[in-house]
């Protein structure tokens, strides 16, 4: 069984600072890391791979995403491929999926594609299912368990109301949650190995993607406005250190619960 992992390099912080004047993200000085759930995706493949299987990691991004691909090599991937081209910039999930699907075709279709459920920056969770659709493959999302079966995989999915176990035939694509496994720590031998391997790069032309068929130009969606949300409420504040404030605070909570017919 051959595996491909879809990896995105994301900003290395949860607390992204905003330029409030312009409503854009401040990217200067923000480092790039592997999207955490994509590390779970890679580890999921490492755990079920068998002798003779190969694990490739594919990414679309700027040239500096190579560092993140190298990190995946250090964690055991056999091959790393980066699609990088100015023409890919600003793509929405549809345009991004188009490039990733072309990469999968170009590098040789695997049996199983694994991706993180969503990326910490975009948080859409759409790329996995969109790539699956472009390949016409079965898909499972919210995966927290993965096993090989004859002719496919069995996945455990955490849904809102319960746990679904289902079987998909290969080739197929699954997206995983962090609950699927615990991440391994990088090893020295892994890092050495990563140094000895090349990160392959592909351009739009290599992938047969013509002018205007990728990136912002090919994206069906357009961001037209960015605003800072206002969820401010004026809290009544009670300092629990002072016995009288604590009493008053508890009274207020009881009052609210009663007012909402919860008590």
């Amino acid at each position, binding site marked *: 069984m051959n595996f491909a992992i879809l990896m995105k390099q994301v900003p290395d912080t949860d607390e992204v600072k905003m330029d409030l004047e312009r409503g854009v993200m401040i990217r200067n000085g923000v480092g790039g890391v592997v999207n955490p759930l994509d590390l779970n995706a890679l580890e999921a493949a490492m755990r079920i791979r068998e002798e003779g299987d190969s694990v490739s990691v594919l990414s679309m991004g700027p040239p500096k995403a190579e560092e993140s691909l190298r990190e995946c090599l250090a964690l055991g991937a056999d091959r790393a491929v980066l699609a990088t081209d100015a023409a890919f910039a600003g793509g929405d999930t549809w345009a991004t999926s188009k490039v990733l699907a072309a990469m999968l075709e170009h590098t040789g279709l695997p049996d199983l594609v694994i991706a993180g459920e969503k990326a910490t920056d975009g948080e859409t969770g759409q790329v996995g299912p969109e790539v699956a659709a472009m390949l016409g493959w079965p898909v499972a999302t919210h995966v927290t368990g993965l096993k090989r079966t004859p002719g496919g995989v069995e996945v455990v999915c955490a849904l*809102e109301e319960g746990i679904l176990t*289902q079987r*998909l035939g290969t080739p197929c694509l699954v997206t995983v949650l962090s609950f699927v496994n615990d991440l391994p720590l990088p090893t020295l031998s892994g890092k050495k190995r990563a140094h000895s391997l090349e990160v392959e790069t592909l351009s739009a032309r290599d992938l047969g993607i013509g002018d205007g068929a990728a990136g912002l130009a090919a994206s069906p969606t357009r961001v037209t406005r960015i605003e800072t949300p206002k969820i401010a409420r004026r809290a009544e504040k009670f300092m629990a250190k002072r016995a009288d404030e*604590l009493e008053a605070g*508890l009274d207020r909570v009881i009052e609210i619960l009663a007012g909402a017919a919860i008590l």
Partner: protein
Amino acid sequence: MLGEVKCSGAVSEATRELSAKARSLADALVASTGGRRRVSAIMMLDDAAAPEAELEQIGQYGADEVMVVRGAGLPFDRAKCAKILALLTKKNRPQILLAPATAFGRSVMPYAAALLETGLTADCTGLEIEEGTGLLLQTRPAIGGNVMATIKTPNHRPQMATVRPRTFRTPAPIPGGAAKIVEPELPDVEDSAAASSFEPFKAARGALQDDDAIVSGGKGLRRPEGFDLISRLADAIGGGVGASRPVAEMRWIGYQHQVGLSGQTVSPKVYIAAGISGSAQHLAGMGTSGKIISINRDPEAPIFNASDVALCGDLYEIIPLLIERIERGRTGSR
């Protein structure tokens, strides 16, 4: 719009919310561009789910018709649902296609969007019709909830969006409203997945999104056992248990409890946040709750700026006192 049923087979609240939202968008489109607009609710159902009478009632929330597609285990076969949805969309050519941003909607909609070669906006918290153009303005939290981005799909149809459940309140039902039930003719679509089992979480407890009160715990609990105290308070008020992302990721509690952009959106009547600092992504998942009560040791915790009542102190002192008071009140009223 794509509706959904609960595992009990009943039509989900999110379906009614979306039906009402779709109706108001359709009416706004008529006002803006004229013509007639139909609201169809598409339901992918397991053989046994949702009796016809209940499906007709979606009409009380604005749907003109309900398109019903049935099959054993169909809702769990995401690729098959998406292929059917794409077929129905190509045939009926709607301007707008909405679905709840649940595990079901989040997997079926992107798959269908790719088949239809159109755009899709995830997790919208606002939908409006733009005056003049009649385009759908899709607003969603972006960059971890730090900003709200408004997105358009100018040249591709349908304009597709998933909507966080509990974002739009369900209006009062229209008395006597009944949607027409339609069973569309479809070519055979192959199965792509076989469900082996579905194990609901605690039978007595529904989804977190349905709770009127939620008590959530975060890193301020300092240890996993802290959720025992959170559960005791939740039990005392008959509410659900929520959690922040860090503690869910540390496995102190299951993913189904995670509230926020990366978990579930909730909007209970009362939300109690204990030991949660209030990251933008958490606030984006519970900011529309009726009343927000927070308990935190840090007087500068951002959650206090999003709260109605802020109790600044140790949750291990405050919560037992609160439970005691709730229980005392209960005995007193007997």
